[in-house]
Each structure stands twice: as C-alpha cells, then as structure tokens.
C-alpha cells in the first residue's frame, strides 16, 4: 500500500473528486492547509491595492505585508494499493494541470499496515 499525498488548488477539489471516482478510486481525505512553494509569491499586485487605499491598511494591509505569506490549498490524502498508484497520480495530474506554477505537488509515501476499524481486520484491501 502507498499513501498518495496531493497538494492542489482549492477550486480543483470538485473536479478531482469526480475524476477519482470515475477512475475507480473513490476513497480520499481532504484537508484545508496553507502553504508556499519554491516560487515566492508576487505581492506587488496586492501591495499596490493596499497602497491605493482600496483595502484598509489594518488589519488586512499589515497581514499582507508582515505575515507569513502563505496560500490556501487543499491536501488530498489517499491510501491505495501499489498497482493503483500510477493511475491515481495520472488522474490527479490530468485534471489539476493548468501549466502554471502553483498547481501543486504529489508525494508517494509507504504505508506498512492498515486496519479496518469496523471489524479489526488487517488487510491490503482496507484502503
């Protein structure tokens, strides 16, 4: 079993859900996260809006200039069988790829064991 951890744009959650269901791998967990990538966020646009006075300087302005400058993302976590990893990765990449930086990342992690809470069975089918 492998854990597929995909960090994607927030507005791509619905299409990703649908695509995964159609690919036959419906089980997933989704979480709200904040983050940043290798490319630094270009704050010039936002800062010019703050400077022009359209947004009040406090607290929004201070947040934009001072704080950690993280972008809101969604992280999909899926536990899948070894054979399904390529299918899941390709499905996620197909629907999420806009060609722009910020589309996200996919990481594959090993999972040693899994248990089904309902009846305690330990199985590779328990994804």
């Amino acid at each position, binding site marked *: 079993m*492998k854990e597929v951890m*995909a*960090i*994607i744009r927030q507005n791509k959650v619905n299409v990703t859900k649908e695509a995964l269901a159609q690919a036959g791998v419906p089980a997933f967990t989704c*979480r*709200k*996260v*904040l*983050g*940043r*990538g*290798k*490319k*630094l966020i270009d704050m010039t646009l936002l800062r010019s809006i703050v400077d022009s006075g359209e947004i009040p300087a406090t607290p929004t302005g201070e947040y934009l200039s001072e*704080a*950690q400058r*993280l972008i809101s*993302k969604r*992280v999909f976590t899926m536990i899948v069988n070894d054979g399904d990893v390529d299918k899941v*990765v390709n499905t*996620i*990449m197909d629907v*999420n*790829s*806009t*060609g*722009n*930086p*910020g*589309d*996200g*990342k*996919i*990481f*594959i*992690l*090993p999972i040693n064991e899994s248990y089904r809470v309902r009846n305690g069975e330990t199985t590779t089918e328990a994804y």
Partner: protein
Amino acid sequence: MLLVRAIIRPEKVGVVLSELLSAGFPAVTKMDVYGRGKQKGVKVGEVFYDEIPKEMLLMVVEDKDKDDVAKIIMKYARTGENGNFGDGRIFVSPVEEAYTISTKKKGL
C-alpha cells in the same frame, strides 16, 4: 527524499517560516492540529486541557537537507534557553516519489 513533519507552537510559526526561507527552504505546508504529548496535556487549576492547539509544518526535502531543516526548526521553535515541555516534535519519514503537477515532472 524525506517528509519532515514538525509539530510546533502556533506563535513560533512566523519566525520558523522566515528562518526556513532565508536558509533556502521556501516550500512548506502548514496545518492547524490539536493534540497532546507525553505530559498528557496541561493542568490549569482544576481543569485539564488535553487538546492543545499546535501547528504542523510539512516539508519534503532531499535526504542531505534533513538535518539542516530539523536544526533550524529546533533552534527557532524552542522557548527559552533549554526549551520547555510543549515546544513540539519533529518526525521524519521516507517519501518514495514526488511529482510537480504543473509540469508533470518527477522529482522535487
């Protein structure tokens, strides 16, 4: 590649993130978590708090960078000279593959 999961105090996130950035590790994901540690939570008067708010930082780094990242987090997430209970933990686990969605390329 290794996944570094660091659970730290929420008030230390800002300084840790800016120090990671200046050390050349910009990529990081942050999530709000609640939990307790070995001390079984915090007792304030009669009340026991065992769901303490923390922030979890997730970073996937090359093997050689793991020690640097852990050192930076431990240096700046610590409170006081010798640290205190509740400063957090860092866990490291292996990552087998990584993909960038925008370019569909393998690797970090």
